[in-house]
């Protein structure tokens, strides 16, 4: 092994630091190994930056320009303008925060609920398993998007946290079931039993022994849930069942199709296409990046790189 000599020199310092460091290094190695992954990574970083700093780049009330309603693409308006003459690019950038934050929170809720419940059900079995799985079945059976539509009548989606929470609630079922079945199959492997025999605590076994083994699955699910959440929330706004509190991509789509009639008047087309483009590029970025996740979390794949 070519790394033996470096291992030895690092060992004299701090083995823990070495391991922590090695994860990030290996992660970067996995990402930079293929150009597609790198492109995906860069797209995700750009969108994240957009969500974080985007709203600070523009005044709180975006300027309107009555002389440039549905303006074509130009240097001043790279993506054209909307029905008030507001720059579409500015709308996309400022609208990213709600969309991405809600999606990230939704995915986080999904993954945290799903993982913890799946781990607990799969490891402890017995009554906790039965209870959790019955609830999971319920959430898996009720069609989630129609449920979201129905819930929109009582729930206020104004804050991304509220949106994210509901997206998480309706979405964790599949994750819990998958984590449970993985936990069950890991239980069959000797190392869980060995850990129990060695007197290690259930907490240690759940989160230090089992969790790292499902981490690449969780990582991938986090990313796919983000895309799923983005579609669901943008879809809700697009359908117009959720009141428009803040500007975001879904609101743009709704206005473009149902108010501006972008389908029949070509001048309004950029207004429709710019949020579509944003969605497509972000999807592409996540799909490309997904490829690297397995390699980042799996030491077996990591070493070969």
């Amino acid at each position, binding site marked *: 092994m070519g790394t033996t000599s470096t291992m030895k020199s690092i060992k004299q310092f701090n083995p823990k630091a070495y391991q922590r460091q090695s994860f990030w290094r290996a992660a970067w190695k996995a990402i930079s190994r293929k150009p597609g992954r790198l492109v995906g990574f860069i797209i995700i970083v750009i969108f994240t930056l957009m969500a974080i700093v985007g709203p600070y780049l523009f005044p709180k009330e975006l300027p309107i320009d009555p002389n440039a309603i549905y303006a074509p693409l130009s240097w001043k308006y790279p993506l054209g303008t909307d029905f008030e003459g507001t720059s579409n690019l500015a709308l996309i950038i400022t609208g990213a925060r709600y969309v991405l934050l809600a999606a990230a929170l939704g995915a986080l809720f999904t993954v945290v609920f799903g993982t913890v419940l799946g781990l607990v059900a799969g490891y402890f079995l017995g009554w906790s398993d039965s209870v959790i799985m019955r609830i999971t079945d319920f959430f898996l059976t009720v*069609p989630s998007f129609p449920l979201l*539509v129905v819930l*929109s009548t009582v729930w206020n989606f104004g804050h991304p946290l509220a949106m994210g929470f509901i997206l998480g609630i309706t979405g964790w079922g599949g994750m819990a079931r998958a984590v449970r079945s993985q936990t069950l199959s890991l239980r069959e492997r000797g190392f869980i039993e060995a850990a129990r025999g060695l007197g290690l605590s259930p907490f240690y076994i759940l989160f230090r022994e089992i969790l790292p083994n499902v981490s690449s699955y969780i990582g991938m699910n986090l990313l796919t849930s983000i895309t799923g959440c983005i579609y669901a929330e943008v*879809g809700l706004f697009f359908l117009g069942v959720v009141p428009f509190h803040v500007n975001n991509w879904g609101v743009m*789509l709704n206005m473009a199709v149902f108010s501006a009639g972008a389908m029949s008047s070509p001048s309004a087309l950029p207004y429709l296409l710019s949020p579509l483009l944003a969605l497509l590029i972000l999807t592409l970025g996540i799909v490309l990046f997904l490829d690297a996740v397995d390699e980042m979390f799996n030491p077996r794949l990591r070493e070969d790189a």
Partner: protein
Amino acid sequence: MKDFLIRLVWRIFSGILMVLAVASLTFFLVRMMPGDPVNAQYNQLIMQGMTPVQAENQVKVMYGFIPKEPVGQQFVNYILNLLHFDFGQSISYEGVSVSHIIVSAAPWTLVLVFTGLIASFLIGVLAGVIAAIKRSSPFGTSLTVSGSLLHGIPQFVMGLLLAYLFTTLWPLLPFGAPYDSSIDPGFNWPFISSLFSHAVLPVFTYALSSYGGWLLTMKSSVITVLGDDFILASEIRGLKASTRVGYIAHNAILPLFTLFTLSIGFMFGGSVFIENIFDYPGLGNLLLKSIDTRDYPLMSGAFLLITIAVILSNIITDFLYSIVDPRIRR
């Protein structure tokens, strides 16, 4: 056989429990609505000049319960009505029963989605097999890439793009409405061809957006089967290529079989976006309209039907699978 019956009864029992749970969810949802719509309706009817008794009866017909009753009593009445397949009366379509509205909307959704489902399944599975077998060739790779891209695009984006391309950019197909309103509905050629041409885009949207999923699943299923020992064994025993392909296809399609029958259940609620974009009078649109007009009885009814469809298909899938796969059979 005895096992089979016990399991069937158990599955149906738990299915009914599930339906009741969803029914109570919608019941309490309506009760939680801002401004309590049931009470509001009652008050409005009084204002319109009804006597309290008349108003009560009217409200009961609509919602299945009377607002003045205690909540427990209301709930029991509501559930009892459901057990008689009485979903109440619509508010926006005055005097029409919810079940009637749902029954007339369901065929639109069914035809639309079922056609799209079948088409995407057949093409996706076929493409998946090719993508798996030719996975190291450029053709196979491009099939896979097409699958992941189409899989990644959300349905409403797909719908809008297709609508833009084929109705605005190249105006080949009509946009909106299930048929040309200038034609008299009936069993005549212009009407049927109008129906057909209006259905092309929605069906296509559904098919394209689910094609990718079928392709990717079938591809990974075929690759898994190709790695199985018995496929190597069948080669070493010198079985004919056609027999071997049959073995692979049979084993690879089994997991997809479950997904397919499950999809049939999700069909009822699976086309909200498409029906909305193309203005199709199906169940999804019905659900949206009921929310728009705050027609709560209709909303609960539509949602309940969508859920019942899923539960039913779950049960059917379970039993069909145990017939198709000898390993599950006892």
